[in-house]
């Protein structure tokens, strides 16, 4: 007899009964190995990083991190089946991107159908358009309201208002908050585009500044200036950056 590859699976749902149904339905499938159950987004990110599962069955509405944000934080997301009770927008998004999803309550057949698709997906290694999905599902605000940073197994949720400034560091950005620095793998230009332009200004190739943190601006050299932040930090401002600032202040 041909032995099927075992799919290592994680269940993520903040409601115990919802996890219970999945556990029960999956229990008599020999090809599924349930490696973890998570009750919130933080646990999910941790489990995915540690266990590198093949499949995650993911609730969307959860405390702290919603399903889409969980995926955003994982470098190589596994195959995904979304589960939701009622969310017109999300369902539209799933249909649009041909993603597998379950509408609660669902029966075993429905789950098995989704799992059959997943087997294909795993062999083909198709990547999910997480950003586009989240946007189509109406879960992405027009401007970023919080930045998610993964630090080893921990996740930091940083409200954008708390950011002092952002510094470019090779392929990373260093997000400076209350004297601490959080590294995130993202390009400056990308982050700049997502932040509220009324609050954040790219004053230099290497710096994005929270306008509210500026204490004063001093002349530094003939063509350049220096922003002095309220905590005393000094940051170089380019000429183009100064022009932008002048318009804002």
């Amino acid at each position: 007899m041909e032995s099927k590859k075992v799919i290592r699976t994680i269940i993520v749902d903040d409601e115990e009964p919802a996890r219970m149904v999945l556990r029960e339905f999956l229990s008599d499938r020999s090809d599924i190995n349930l490696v973890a159950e998570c009750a919130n987004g933080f646990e999910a990110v941790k489990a995915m990083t540690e266990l590198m599962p093949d499949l995650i069955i993911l609730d969307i509405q959860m405390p702290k991190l919603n399903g889409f944000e969980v995926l955003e934080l994982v470098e190589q997301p596994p195959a995904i089946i979304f589960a939701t009770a009622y969310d017109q927008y999300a369902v539209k998004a799933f249909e649009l991107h041909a993603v597998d999803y379950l509408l609660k309550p669902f029966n075993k057949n429905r789950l098995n159908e989704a799992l059959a698709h997943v087997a294909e997906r795993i062999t083909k290694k198709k990547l999910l358009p997480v950003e586009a999905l989240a946007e189509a599902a109406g879960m992405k605000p027009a401007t970023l309201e919080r930045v998610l940073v993964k630090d080893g197994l921990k996740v930091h949720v940083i409200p954008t208002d708390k950011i002092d400034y952002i510094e470019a560091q090779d392929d990373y950005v260093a997000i400076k908050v209350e004297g601490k620095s959080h590294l995130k793998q993202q390009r400056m230009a990308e982050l700049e585009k997502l932040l509220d332009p009324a609050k954040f200004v790219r004053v230099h190739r290497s710096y994005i500044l929270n306008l509210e943190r500026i204490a004063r601006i001093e002349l530094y050299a003939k063509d350049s200036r220096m922003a002095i932040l309220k905590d005393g930090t000094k940051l170089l401002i380019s000429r183009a950056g100064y022009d932008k600032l002048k318009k804002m202040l």
Partner: protein
Amino acid sequence: MHPILANRRTLVLYLTIWLFVGLLIELPFIYTYKAQWGAFLLADIPLDLFFAFMCLSSYYLCRIFPIRTTIWYNLLSLFVVVACLAGGITLAVGYGWVHLVDSLQLTASIAPLYEPWIAGIYSLLVLIFLLIAATHYVIITFEQSRETELQTFELKVLAQDAELRALRAQIDPHFLFNSLNSISALTTANPERARTMVILLADFFRNSLDLGAKNRIPLSDELSLIEKFLTIEQVRFGSRLKVAQDIDKQTLECKIAPLLLQPLIENAVRHGISQLVEGGTIALKTKLNNHKLVISVENPFDPDYVAKKGTGLGIKNVRSRIETIYGNDGRIDIEKNGDVFKVELSFPIKNITK
């Protein structure tokens, strides 16, 4: 648009009346000069219609100068001038037209026969024009009163509609589908509990439909509905959802509009407790204060939680209902204090049975 022109039947009626009036004026001439009756008719009918339309134009003047806001002697002089002008124009056109008819030489010339009567015809035209202008004012007043009546009626319907929508919005699909999912989970693990849940859910919906159909209910009825709701939600959220009640016994019989509290509790669960990893306690308090019923719902929430679109509708509905029902005597206060969200309702009570 002109009310007479707007409707073909009234237009036909109006023109028919005019033909009669025209014929009435013409009758003495036809009677006196029987041989020329054809020419008289040919001269008269088009002019009749011409002047009929001319008179209709006064409607627009009436609209521009409303009778209530225009000074009466201004109005009178305006209409006298316009009427004289309209009469003059009609006479001039009539003069040309009659001569044209004469030039056809169907009968002996009729123009000279009109001449002695021109002054009389002119004053008649002016008089008719003024009369019709006055009629237009009557029509406009009538139309306006009907419009205001319609508007008040529409407003009433809208208000009722808002109430209905507020009630219908109570049935939150998230709640329904998630509860059904919980039941689905319980069916194999704990069939007895699954059955209890189904019955609770049925009771809850039946109850909210019943209460929604009523005008006023005792607070105790609303509280027992909330109790069912929270019991169902406790199956979903387990130990994450805790409830603390501080109910003043005196308030239980107070009459309130139905389903005012339920949306607040639902909100507290959906945007408060369910967004917290550890959950928290919903505190529900009622008390009497200066013949007012004061109800507060307090819950912890995640300050970082970014509400999705379409949220806050529950509270908005409650606010607009309180406004409609209690007017200035009702209040809804919303307070965010750190990670605690508090809604307080207060409104006068009609009858407390002791």
